[in-house]
């Protein structure tokens, strides 16, 4: 067990964990932030997507020891004031069905728009290919990203 200091959604948090504990379980079990979801544990589904220094990563496949000084953002910290344009677009298009994959989708889309504010349809598809939605909301996700990218 080791002590780590993480910068989580702008706040420093101390945790004690084994060095190999995936960030996902640190976030969910030790920090009790439940918006980041477990879907596969193998970087195959994107449900656990968070940002490290603004870039989308699969938290299930990053051990806590590798996080270091990087700034961690989870869905709870995506927009501290009001709503992120994606969160507004998500409501406008009523994207979710069960909703479980959606926080990962939004975090992945937010990083996409940060790197590429007006992605083409093909760019959206390839950037979002790592995020599974078993309920099948892909078309609305795409539409919501397009709406947000125009705002």
């Amino acid at each position, binding site marked *: *067990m080791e002590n780590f200091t993480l910068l989580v959604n702008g706040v420093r948090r101390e945790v004690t*964990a*084994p060095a190999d*504990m*995936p960030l996902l*379980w640190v976030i*969910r*079990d*030790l920090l*009790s*932030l*439940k*918006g*980041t*979801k*477990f*879907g*596969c*544990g*193998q970087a*195959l*589904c994107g*449900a656990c997507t968070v940002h490290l220094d603004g870039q989308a990563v699969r938290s299930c496949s990053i051990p806590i020891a590798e996080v270091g000084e990087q700034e961690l953002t*989870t*869905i*709870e910290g995506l927009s501290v004031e009001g*709503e992120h344009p*994606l*969160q507004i677009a*998500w*409501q406008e298009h*009523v*994207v*979710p*069905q*069960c*909703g*479980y*994959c*959606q*926080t990962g989708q*939004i975090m992945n889309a937010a990083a996409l728009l940060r790197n590429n504010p007006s992605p083409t349809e093909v760019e*959206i*598809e*390839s950037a*979002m*290919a*790592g*995020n*599974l*939605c*078993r*309920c*099948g*909301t*892909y*078309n*609305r*996700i*795409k539409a919501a990203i397009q709406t947000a990218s125009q705002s």
Partner: protein
Amino acid sequence: MIPKFPFLSGPKTSNRSKVFRPSRREFLKIGSLASGAFLIGVNFQCSGPKGEIRTFAPNAYLSINSDNEVRIIAHRSEMGTGIRTSLPMIVADELGADWKSVKIEQAVGDEATYGDQNTDGSYSIRMFFEPMRRAGATARHMLLEAAGKKWEVDPAGCDTENGQVIHAASGQQIKFADLIDLLQDMEIPDQETLKLRKLSDYKLIGKDVPIYDVKDIAHGKALFGADMDLPGQQIAVIERSPVVGAKVINYAEDKALEIPGVNRVIKISGNGAHPGLNKPLEGIAVIADNTWAAIKGRAALQVEWDLGDNKDYQCAAQMEDMIRETLEDGKLRREKGDVKTAFGSSGTVLEKTYRAPYYAHATIEPPAALAHYKADGTVEIWAPTQHPQWARDSVAEALELDAANVRVNVTLLGGGFGRKSKPDYVVEAALLSRAIKKPVRVQWTREDDIHHDFYHSHSAQRIKAGLDAQGKLIAWNHHTVFPAIGGTSSADELHPSDGEMGLGCTDFPYDVPNIRIESHEAKAHTRIGWLRSVSNIHHAFAISGMLDEIAEVRGMDPVEHTLSLLGEDRQLSFNEEMKGEYPNYGEDITAYPWDTARMKRVIERVSTEANWSKSIQDGKAVGFAAHKSFLTYVACIVEVSRDENGKIIVPVVHYAVDCGIPVNTDRIRSQFEGGAQFASSLAMSSAINFENGQVRQNNFDSYQIIRMPQAPKQIYTHIIESQEKPTGVGEPPVPPFIPALCNALYQLNGKRIYELPVKEAFV
């Protein structure tokens, strides 16, 4: 205990519902909803599988409090269909509530309070549309009476709107909340003469209404079963029998206990090679402070298994056996005329064999459940379950408790598709909590989920069709064989039940003079369950693929061909031809007949909307299929093409649906969009294989579901403005999509598809 499966037997709905004022005791039971408020309940009579009348039990409650907030209890599980929004929406619309001030509360699993809560079989809207309207109408009627008294006007001149009663003539208006006092002593109005609003007057029903939880979901605040925590809880991850029926010979726990955070290792006993639908598999549970410790602890376990009878099971070999079976005479399930003679006089005979694999549900939230066995001997559960009462009864049975001592709280479900009807994971949590006297949350990993599901059965089918000299279809002989759901519980269940046969096979609606439908024996070597639309999946694949081939042989347009095969407009009951029962999704066939005119209407609509004839003239690769399931009529046209890299894509899908009165049009469309994508996975990419009794796939790398680039690009859902009784839309989009896609692929590649999934075409 065998629960009711709506698609296999009952319950049958009836439109008898009753609205009542809860007693003081009932009032207290539903606590938070009721404080200081006007409250009514509505209950609803349904009959059991054998038609026996089950007692009235309240299904829903509605309250109006002093803040003019309308609270409605949602007693169905939300797994992505929007039912948690759509049922309260019906109450609110009839009532004239301000939708923005409606609060929805989730009911616990309690039959005495909420009646049947099994959320399965696409029947929530079908069963509860009428009772929900009546609940709203009753409260509305009472509010009008109260306002009439207050203003000394005729209540008939008043109406409700946006949470207020309005008297148009005098221009007076008053909030519902300000009438609560007057409501307290009022009698429930006569239900026989109760006036419901006209369909055209609704402001929510028939419109797009966003789901209640959309904002919470977008902000990560929506909580699912896997998100439940209690102080002092432990997390359990379980090593389960690799082959169904395997027994633990012995196990070493020392290495697991060395992992920091791991506290206990506990054995769970299984229930043999036919373990049933609600029992845990045999396994060794590692109990730890957090999920990661439990996962690592499990990896460190050493378990020696006696793999049992299923250890030599190869699904590929069983598939070959099943195909051989279809060449023999099987068990007769429906018969009309005499196919054998008809084949003798047929000019052309087509005979094709269809194969489909096992599928796993792969709900994006793997099974998880939190149980707290308390010092007083009661158990409280928090679980993403489709069937809270079955979960409660199964926990009670496993722990030998009275069901009254088990309380099941229903969380949001991260997908269900039939998987989360089975309460095995809930029972695991309860057993472990009792063993360690602490709250325990069981967390399945994705590998656990893929390895230990209740699978959709693999299947073989052979269809033989005979055409006479004029090319008319005169004989239809359909053989179907697949391990049945019943085989999960009993070694003696070797044939599909009447219920499974009635899912798109024996209810073959086409006007063919000679029909013979047969099933064959197949043993269950794993746990078979039901997956979104159940055996409709493989039956529609075979039947609509065969019809497309017949149309080609006859030189007919497939749409015209299907329309002509439906024959005269008529209502089918199949009765005298069925060799067993025809459950008709739990509904009386006279109340919900198979109506060929409704099917024709969706076919004509989809063909117009998709510009079918023009697409064919233009040489587009389009495929068509129509299939009724769960009492909802659906026709589907899928287009396929190649992108610039030569990869096959699905640019457009058109659906037309007649689901009776459409309730929430946005959620109907979203179910069809999702259904097309769910079916795309089944058609293009997913398959489970067993070797030596064990599942070969592990995670989403080997059990593939489609990703955004493979998803159909545009999905249009054309909803028939029907006045018929509403029916569900969760499952019906799936069956016709698969053959429509396969028929389109044939147009593109010139190769008929007889086996799912059609992977090569898409990689």
